[in-house]
């Protein structure tokens, strides 16, 4: 296996990790208004994310950094080409992260209400846009060779809003919503758990329909049948249905694991459909960005492989350990004085 293939695989792994982890974060953020009936509920829901959301987001930063290091041409073309969607994602992630940290510092309802809106929008927007972005990459976007010799994106913002890509956005949106509901029914107790459990089933069915439609479309869109992609697509559907069944039978842990695996097979399938291209061009395959024409030198890839092979397992161990430390369910009754914030003078 060439170092280029190794890095294609590693970047796929980073996106799989990111979508599994921040996927449920996004889901929980969107579900916040729908599973809570009061301040104690809302704070319990947010507390399930408290210790982990920031670490989850680092997967995105590492995926970005790894793309920069391993495939600079891909990084440059993608980030300058998908300019406005990435800008929107940045703004969403900024306000959402601060909302988690700041919303409960004060008890004032107007203050909290505003941050709650920031959490909802800041979660929904990236959940939708990541799907739009990935679907566009798989579908192929207008890329051409510029006078400088580099392959550049020549479409506009509205080129990215085609039906296939929008369907991709709806898939990630509904999949993350469901995944978040599985996470909440696993991590909370009492009423929130009951509501999340019920929502997971309904949302899971909606997501199943959109995801199957998207995967069928994707498979048919390819010039010839890609067996591996087909197998991964079928596996996605099976695991997804498995998650719904596990949830129905009250096996919340299994439901969460199954929806995580489904996300993994889904993302892997899209990467499989791309390989060895990283950004196919809709203007002809001579303008495709591939792992060969977009990559760094073998030396750089080798250096980065050593770093990744040493560090990734270590990161997985300590990040996994965090989930073990905070394995207990959170219930609304554990939040004392939920309507007060630490910066309200009345408190104590």
């Amino acid at each position, binding site marked *: 296996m060439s170092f280029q293939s190794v890095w294609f695989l590693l970047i796929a792994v980073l996106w799989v990790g990111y979508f599994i982890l921040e996927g449920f974060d996004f889901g929980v953020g969107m579900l916040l208004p729908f599973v809570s009936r009061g301040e104690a509920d809302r704070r319990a829901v947010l507390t399930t994310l408290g*210790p982990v959301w920031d670490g989850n987001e680092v997967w995105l930063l590492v995926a970005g*950094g790894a793309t920069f290091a391993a495939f*600079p041409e891909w*990084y440059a073309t993608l*980030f300058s080409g998908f300019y406005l969607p990435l800008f929107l994602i940045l*703004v969403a992630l*900024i306000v959402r992260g601060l909302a988690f940290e700041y919303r409960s510092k004060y008890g004032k309802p107007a203050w909290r209400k505003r941050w709650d809106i920031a959490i909802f929008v800041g979660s929904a927007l990236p959940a939708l846009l990541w799907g739009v972005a990935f679907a566009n990459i798989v579908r192929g976007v207008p890329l051409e060779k510029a006078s400088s010799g580099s392959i550049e994106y020549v479409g506009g913002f509205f080129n990215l809003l085609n039906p296939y890509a929008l369907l991709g956005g709806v898939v990630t949106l509904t999949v993350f919503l469901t995944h978040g509901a599985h996470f909440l029914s696993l991590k909370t107790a009492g009423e929130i758990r009951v509501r999340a459990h019920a929502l997971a089933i309904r949302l899971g069915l909606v997501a199943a329909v959109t995801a199957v439609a998207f995967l069928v479309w994707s498979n048919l869109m390819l010039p010839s049948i890609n067996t591996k992609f087909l197998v991964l697509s079928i596996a996605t559907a099976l695991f997804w249905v498995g998650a719904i069944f596990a949830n129905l039978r009250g096996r919340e842990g299994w439901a969460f694991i199954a929806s995580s695996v489904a996300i993994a097979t889904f993302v892997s399938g899209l990467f499989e459909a791309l390989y060895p291209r990283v950004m196919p061009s809709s203007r002809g395959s001579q303008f495709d960005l591939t792992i060969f024409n977009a990559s760094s030198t073998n030396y750089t890839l080798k250096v980065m492989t050593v770093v990744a092979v040493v560090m990734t397992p270590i*990161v997985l161990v300590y990040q996994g350990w965090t989930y073990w*430390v905070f394995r207990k369910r959170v219930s609304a009754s554990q939040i004392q004085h939920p309507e007060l914030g630490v910066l309200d003078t009345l408190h104590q």
Partner: protein
Amino acid sequence: MNSLDLARWQFAITTVYHFLFVPITIGMGFYVAGLQTAWYRTGNLKYLRATKFFGKLFLINFAIGVVTGIVQEFQFGMNWSSYSRFVGDIFGAPLAMEGLLAFFLESTFLGLWIFGWDRLPKKLHLASIWAAATGTLLSAYFILAANAWMQHPVGYILNAQKGRAELTNIFTVLTQKTALTTFFHTIPSAAFTGAAFIAGISAWLIIKKKDVEMTRGTLKLGLIAMLISFVLVGISGDLTSRVMTQQQPMKMAAAEALYTTTESAPFSLLTIGTLDGSRSVFQIDLPSVLSFLSTGDFKGVVEGVNDLQAKYESQYGPGDYKPNIPLAYWSFRLMMGFGFLGAFFALLALFQMRKGGTPRGRWFVPAMVTLPFLPLLANSFGWIFTETARQPWAVFGLIKTSAGVSQVVSSGAVLFTLIAFTLLYGVLAVIEVGLIFRTIHIGPRPEVEYDVDTVGGSDNRPLVMSY
């Protein structure tokens, strides 16, 4: 303005803004870890109160540093894609390493620290704040190594066919003198910044007579740490300026508005008049000091702007190789001036605190209130100096900033995001400052020992920490 100017403004605004929070985080992280260690060792609750109080301020600040940091990584690809294509083979590696080695460590262990008060054994909980603080150091190291490569590219070859620089030795990139001196200059500056924060806030609490048992100690800690780190900033600043004179003589000449090559060059303390090489109206000079600063020898020769311009024209072809000289001149002085002023206040306050005294005098309140802002200004001017005085280069001698901007992004798009980020950052600054003032106003809270529960399963104990 064209998209190049707009992209430069965007980079300047988002980076200076981001770096207001970064040094506070790096500095405070270690002080908070130290305070918690003191509590762990002695069991004295005043240390716990200090840990929690400054920890709260640290976290309010950390959050905004984290979220504005994502913009930094995306911006290279979004606004500077031609730069990214040219340097990616080298520049991307430290960025990816920063993510893998530093960001994961910081974020994960900070999560454990914030929510782990009643979930982790005391020792492990203490270890997690140290791990998070170490993460901030690693992060600084990798990003400074990347920046040092822009100041002084090493360990690469130019691939003319692909039109890019390619890495030949990662160790040279990570351990070159420029990277090490910059790191050794930036970290004590962060320690100075964090200490000024702690000192200024503690002084305010003393004035308000809040928890004097704790705040007297933290004031002293802050002041002493300020002085120690100031000495280190000075030593490393001296090293940095020598390395800079060697590698980027134009930057030093610009900092001094020195137009002609001079032996025993003076350091100008103040110039009134123009900086364009025509005679100044009024000037105070320290004889031979510039020569000493830049070469280590009072008789050393310092190259002047005009001579360097001629030299670069013959080396790199026709063009303007002069940075914005008034900006370089003033930012260099403001960097040092604000640092000196902060250290002076710290020394004065510490002098009055000897033998159990309390600082007093009419200077004390205004000095202590401005104290936390002085290092922030010094840091910002330091970066403005080192980045703008490298111009016209993005990577010195290799690629000009004008060649780095994205070709496919319209100036309208850059203008739009520039305005949006500026407005958003402005609003966030107001919110952040409001939260910090409020936290200081409330002051340290009484604390009790924790009952740590590390057993699994579900229970209904109230949470010590919740969102």
